């Protein structure tokens, strides 16, 4: 990152932190958690401990981090190296990110940036200028992706509260600060589970590894009555809804499934049905019991948007509600071929243009790597 850009971002982030102490708190049982942070152009600093909000705010003002993290795990000695921390338990965290949904709209709001020549172009496999295949994909704001992620979040909440009997009051949802949502489960009997057990829970939630026998198809002697019903609890009911649509279509669908055969049913369960009703969580995140997660209220250096708790996911609009940097005009040089929208205002495409934009948009473009200060 250019030195001027870096200085500008650090100043802006510092100002944000100073103005928003009310949004940035240490979580419960702070002394048992590990904290970490990153600075612009630098690696991660981990294995820190913070006691109170004041300690956290002081750390923000002193170090001006680009990103701040806190562990889901609770330890006896959070400051010691990983093997000596003495892990006690960990909140169960789910990450649902737009990139994992891979919606058709993605190609329209993604551009590429070449590693070799820094050229930014429309989505393609190689850099059109220097033909290098070493490229970064840059995805810009998209309401459709956010709606898709929200739908997954709500499906996940249903499974957690119905199938897993997790109390709604122990579930907290926050916008990740880029293009996803994090869902935290605290104070539950699941907190004690290690990563091996969590992986099986992940497969449950993603509907991964389902076998035909469980969903009614006995290999040698299929019987019509053993196929799931629409009002069955858990996956049986959801699979029935996905396969049959309605009760009246069940009989006809079952006949077809049996005549298509066991292997076809297995393939249908593990591909079509999984893609349609499995919740698209990031398995690596939930399986990790030693991870440090972005802290609520802090900024995400991939976008300059804030990671914020949302009480009402459906109404939450991240491109307005989490865009908390001020709108003083800033002059930038931008060159990218697609448009994006923040605070109901459209920006781009720009062809090597010098323009004046509100500070929040300047920060967004600098963080995305598609503009520089003029």
């Amino acid at each position: 990152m250019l030195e001027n850009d870096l200085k500008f971002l650090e100043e802006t982030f510092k100002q944000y932190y100073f103005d928003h102490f009310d949004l940035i708190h240490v979580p419960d049982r702070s002394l048992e958690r590990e904290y970490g942070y990153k600075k612009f152009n630098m690696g991660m600093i981990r294995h820190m401990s913070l006691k109170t909000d004041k300690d956290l705010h002081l750390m923000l003002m002193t170090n001006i981090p680009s990103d701040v993290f806190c562990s889901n795990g609770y330890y006896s000695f959070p400051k010691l190296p990983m093997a000596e921390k003495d892990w006690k338990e960990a909140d169960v965290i789910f990450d649902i990110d737009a990139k994992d949904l891979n919606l058709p709209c993605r190609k329209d709001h993604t551009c590429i940036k070449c590693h070799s020549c820094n050229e930014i172009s429309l989505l393609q496999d190689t850099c059109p200028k220097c033909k290098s295949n070493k490229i970064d994909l840059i995805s810009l704001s998209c309401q459709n992706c956010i709606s898709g992620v929200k739908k997954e979040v709500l499906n996940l909440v249903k499974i957690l509260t119905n199938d897993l009997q997790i109390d709604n009051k122990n579930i907290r949802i926050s916008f990740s600060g880029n293009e996803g949502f994090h869902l935290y489960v605290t104070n539950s009997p699941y907190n004690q589970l290690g990563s091996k057990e969590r992986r099986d829970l992940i497969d449950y939630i993603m509907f991964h590894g389902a076998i035909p026998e469980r969903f009614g198809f006995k290999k040698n002697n299929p019987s019509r009555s053993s196929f799931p019903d629409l009002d069955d609890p858990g996956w049986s009911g959801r699979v029935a809804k996905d396969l049959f649509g309605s009760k009246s279509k069940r009989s006809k669908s079952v006949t077809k499934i049996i005549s298509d055969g066991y292997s076809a049913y297995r393939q249908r369960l593990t591909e079509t049905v999984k893609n349609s009703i499995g919740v698209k969580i990031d398995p690596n995140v939930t399986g990790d019991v030693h991870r440090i997660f972005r802290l609520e209220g802090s900024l995400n250096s991939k976008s300059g948007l804030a990671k914020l708790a949302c009480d009402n996911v459906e109404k939450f609009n991240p491109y307005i509600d989490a865009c908390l940097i001020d709108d003083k005009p800033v002059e930038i040089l931008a060159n990218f071929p697609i448009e994006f929208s923040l605070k109901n205002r459209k920006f781009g495409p720009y062809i090597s243009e010098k323009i004046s934009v509100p500070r929040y948009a300047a920060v967004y473009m600098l963080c995305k790597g598609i503009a520089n200060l003029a």
Partner: protein
Amino acid sequence: MISLGQDEIAKYPFLAEAGQYLKDKGFTLEQFATDPDLKIIVDKAYERIESAAEEKTYKPEVYDSNEKDLVLPLNVFSFLIAIVLLKLSGLNTLINKFALAEARRAEKFLQRDLVSNSSKTSEEFATKIFHEIFSVTIKKSGEYFVIPIPDYLRHAVNFHELDWKLVNRHVENGMVFLTPHESVRLIRKELGGYIGTRIRAANTPNMSSGFEDKVKKLSDLAKKFVVNTVVTTEYPPCIKHAIEALNNGENLSHSGRFMLATFLLGRGQTVDEIAPLFKNAPDYNEKVTRYQIKQVAGEGGNKTKYACPSCEKIKSNDLCYITPDCDNIINPMQFGKKRL
């Protein structure tokens, strides 16, 4: 500690305090080594180990209710003397096989006790074993038993068959529904582990001449179970796929790279040999790549050497490209290992 009646000790002899049991019945270990009348129990103990080694469940002869008072203690004695013989032999293979066979035997009783409609005490006792030894809270619900999901997961993750995956279970309101057979099967491995641990934790008595002959026979028995293996140099399909993806300049995920590095390190390759594989990756940076492989190899700051992830984890990460050659392995490191 669970309090045991005579019936329970005969069914679950591993729950008894061995020394105390002998003492209560008025015997010493020395008597078993020397008294010709008790030789039959030492013979039975040996048979019990032998049938375990051959993976059969030990079935003492059927008794009628008149002989119950006599036969039940005999069964407990043969179990306790079997442990003495195993401890004297020090043969881990046999201890493992014995523990597993005893677990299978106990499993049958547990299952019977769980569904025993005639005896409420037996059902309660079986439920208690689940709770006190394996921390599994199990409750009856119609024809099924229900277990809280976290308890289920702690045990079910030891199975590799797909039907034990939570997704393939009847789950409702935080509970998993299991048949009595499945409930008992769920704790099989831990039951074997528990019995094995109790055997290993027991004191090894001094060798008595009366036991020498049987201990020698056990050494001969154990020789049958030495396994020779050969390993092919072929890579498993997941690893081949990862290498191919990198060669084609595709962006292999972090978990894919981790899998590849840990696998090759596990096969004895060095950081210098592995790093060049990543050079076609879209974000290749030699310094970063070498640093990361070193971390994985345990040559970095924290000295932790990472092992190749299990097939199950690889499947979860969509990196599995299973072929019949995989032959039910549970970790790519096992690929191509064949018993001679």
